[in-house]
């Protein structure tokens, strides 16, 4: 049998998902685009994300170790 907590979780997440989260997701996807790069692009030569080319630096790992998760 479901506990009250389970029922509350279902109702809360259902409302949260469709009233708050879904509109945000639509807004995000419309203005920013696909956050997961899902598109298969047969014209591309490679699917690697190269850190030296796109401006992102992923080489200084000392700063990566700062004690936050």
């Amino acid at each position, binding site marked *: 049998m479901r506990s009250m907590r389970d029922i509350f979780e279902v109702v809360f997440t259902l409302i949260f998902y469709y009233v708050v989260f*879904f509109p945000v997701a639509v807004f995000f996807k419309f203005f920013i685009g696909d*956050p*997961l*790069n*899902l598109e*298969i692009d047969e014209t591309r030569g*490679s699917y690697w994300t190269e*850190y030296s080319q796109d401006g992102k630096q*992923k*080489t200084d790992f000392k700063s990566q170790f700062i004690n936050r998760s």
Partner: protein
Amino acid sequence: MKVLGISAFYHDSAAALVMDGEIICAAQEERFTRKKHDDSYPVNSINYCLESASMEAKDVDYVVFYDKPLEKFRRLMKTHIAMAPKGYGSFRYSMPTWAGDKAFQRNKIIKSLRTLDQNVDWKNKLLFSEHHLSHAASAFFPSRFHDSAILTMDGVGEWATTSLAIGQGNNIKIMKEINFPHSLGLLYSAFTSYTGFRVNSGEYKVMGLAPYGEPRFAQLIKNNLIDIKSDGSFRLNMEYFGYCTGMSMINDSFCELFGAPARSPESQLTQKEMDLAASIQNVAEEVLLKLGKSIAADTGMRNLCLAGGVALNCVANGKLLKEKFFDNIWIQPAAGDAGGALGAALAGYHIHADLPRRNDFEKMDGMKGTYLGPKYDQRDVERILTLIGARYTVAQNEAELTKFCAQVLAEGKAVGWHQGRMEFGPRALGARSILGDPRSPTMQRLLNLKVKYRESFRPFAPSILIDELSEWFELEEASPYMLLVANVNKKLLEKISKDEEKLFGIKKLNVKRSKIPAVTHVDNSARIQTVHKQTNHLYYALINEFYKITGCPILVNTSFNIRGEPIVNTPEDAYRCFMGTDIEFLVIGNCILDKSQQDEMSKRDYKQDFALD
């Protein structure tokens, strides 16, 4: 400097300790809790590490967690955004878990560390490495290479599923990545799920099943599920997968593509599952070989280090080695997430603290044969065995012990072998192993059905003296961690009749293929462990004795457990497994236990204690 690495909260929790650049100890939590793939905070492993190094918690300079939980949360949120409105099922399940628990992992770890010593400022000692940096560090720093390309591939870390890094001296630079949801590990897991095996543990079975089938679905997979570029980079077609939006790896479209629903776990295996296994293995090998070729060309590196769960695919590793894109390949034996604990500790030591690598790796790598776990001295063993009512005799010395064991092995008996420090990583390498005679045509069936209680198709691995390797297998490199597959030497193969050649699927098992049939898979391959005197002299001596008696320098080596059970750790675990199976002899330290001499009342069928994997 002392750095403790931890992996936890996903699967395969573990802890590892690095002291002044040397790997002192490492252990996986499941071995202590007896819960396979245990993901809980590794309190037992941490305690073991501290005790093993005779140090107190306050002596630890840094604790490094193997990934960044908040980055994982970001990935989860972005995935839900990308998939909306499809992903409510997954959202409903994951959000309460994250809101109530996972988002506060840092606090959880600090709280747990305080139970070790509440006067230590753990907040300032706790660091977080990135998941793939941890894997890369676990592969590069213990290797013998001064510089190397490092390829890591797994299901997913924070974002990365595949990464290429360059290791030089005491530094690692991540050069490029392929990010979630495009993952070779998850693609392989999707087929693991579809063929009716358990995700995160059944991948090994899919690899073992592959040689029974034909890769007739490989083109279908490449046409629909994965786009592979010439440099080996890839993207998955998410229309066929369920892991972004639901709680399963695959969806209805995936099943429709292959014309049937997923196989039910434990139901009869058919030729179709074997062909699917062969097909996904074929695709995985194609990706790995293309990656290897392009990485060698782009980086100019002559060495390659591998880690991440995909690096446990020893068949693909063997093919990569055979292509000779690199002069040397080294694979982290604990390539999965447990090894992340070790990588985190090494990354903390070398990269964060900027301390140099040890340079005494001229002869061996830094893993010490991966014998990094707990050991039990002779007095402890005798005390424990007496306490649990075991009947045993004690060999006077190692020579007497190895002679006796080699003799009973040559007579076709199965021997449980519990010696020295436990292995770190998923493979048993002669410290917690069940051993047998590879010349016996019935040994594979016997061990699978009467000892391990597992599927009859699964192959067993040979342990061979390093000096005899080239005489028996088509392999020139040492393979101390059982991570390379190569063919049995042609001169040792038996002639197969025309009728036998025509056999399909599981019937292939009944054919005697070589002079060492118990370790020869149906495609004449073997997953080889080379045994070295420097790292395990007792196991080396045992095989050497067996060699003297039989002329065969090889033993069947399988992990000391039954299906679904973590590999045994303590002498009690070993005795329970011994008494619950048809193993005829158990050897712990210098103690020899003969099954026929044990109290019948001690026999207990304990298969039900473990969920099938």
